[in-house]
């Protein structure tokens, strides 16, 4: 486990189940983010019954897809435009459809599903949130 922790210091993999550096909540910024799903007609969808995924897992996937874009775009994704984040959002929706929960998407059940990016900020002594629809899955 100590080896796993050391290996993870340079940002490479620090996880090899069940070994982990258990990095959860190991540093705190004054901003964070999450994602949720909306139906084609704009209604929020519960992630567990809809795609059998917890919101935490959905956020993790989106975070990985945002990280993949760091080769392409500079700076923090907190400063990126919706268009820049769209690539990650679409990759996350494709992951849900093609890898994680194909049965949930069968027969066009989730055509037009959208991914909403929610940013949470601490501004002085209050919490502020901002939402953007970053991607939609077309019926292809």
């Amino acid at each position, binding site marked *: *486990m*100590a080896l796993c*922790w050391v290996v993870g*210091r340079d940002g490479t*993999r620090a*996880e*090899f*189940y*069940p*070994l*982990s*550096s*258990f*990095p*959860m*909540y*190991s*540093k*705190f*910024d*004054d*901003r*964070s*983010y*999450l994602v*949720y*799903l909306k139906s084609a007609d704009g209604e*929020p*969808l*519960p*992630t*567990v*019954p809809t795609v059998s995924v*917890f*919101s*935490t*897992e959905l*956020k*993790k*996937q989106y975070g*990985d897809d945002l990280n993949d874009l760091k080769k392409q775009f500079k700076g923090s994704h907190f400063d990126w435009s919706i268009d820049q984040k769209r690539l990650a959002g679409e990759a996350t929706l494709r*992951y849900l459809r093609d*890898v*994680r929960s*194909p049965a949930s998407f069968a027969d066009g059940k989730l055509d037009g599903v959208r991914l909403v990016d*929610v940013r*949470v*900020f*601490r501004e002085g*002594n*209050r*919490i502020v*949130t901002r939402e953007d629809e970053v991607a939609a899955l077309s019926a292809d």
Partner: protein
Amino acid sequence: MKTFFRTLFSNQLGRIRYAPWEWTVMRIGFAITFWFATWHTWRPWAVNIHDHYDIERANGLPSLMDLSWAGQPVPTYVIAALSLVLLVIYAAGRWKLGTTWVLFLIQAVVGGIHSSPEGSHHATQVVALVMLGQAAWFTWERFRPRRLAESGLDSASGAIFWSQQMICAGYVISAVSKWVNSGGGIIPGAKWVNQLPNIAVQFEKNRLQAFYDNLETPISTETNQWAIELLLNRPGLMMFFLALGFYIELLAFLTLFNRASALVVGIGLMSLHAFIFTIMNLPFYYFEAVDFLFFVNLPFWGALVLGKVRFSSSEKLATT
């Protein structure tokens, strides 16, 4: 009570002797914990493994080879049935070397798939780690030189001690990650504690994520909002309580020193998880279970109160 406090400060690292009945209770409790951590249901007919995962981002063994076939109905039921049979044998205390290694392998595969993509959650690692610790102990017990066997721990005490070490390793590594990732420094965790007012952002994020799971208001909403309010307006008080959580993780190895410290620190760790659940809606069922079984060890203290076990001069607390 006086003896309890005297014991609290005595060093019995690696020398605590557990009675066979304590190991039996822990083994049965851990077998149940293991089943639930692996299959997430009490119903053997409702077991499930994801039959798709991204191998590039998979966690552990599933990242080395495509194990998605395990998620097909027949392999899933075979693996679940095998784990059920092995858990019964394990709980009965038979074939410990073989059962612990195979059960660890099953947990490493099923838990690895469920915990993919890597880093998605850390709920069940502790169960696999404890099983790995026990498998390693039974291997050592089988092959250790005779002179070490005569002076070393008996089978039950060794299995418990090695399980406890694995649990402690998880907590201490977690605390060290907090210490280093928050900026390091000479005083452990000082920078982490200093950043704590920003945890209000995480509390709000967790509340929203818990809501979007099922579009239901999470039961922790009230305490969550209270904690956010406190952090934003009177951060000192919350920083104090949350700092206690960091130091109890960092000092989790104190559980290894004697039975009394295992009880005190074990209750502290369980309280930490309960506090996090109350505010962040993040359940830590398996950490709670292993802390309760291997550290708090309530049956021993019950037996002590009932006079079924006694204090011994050599080990301070020993079973009769």
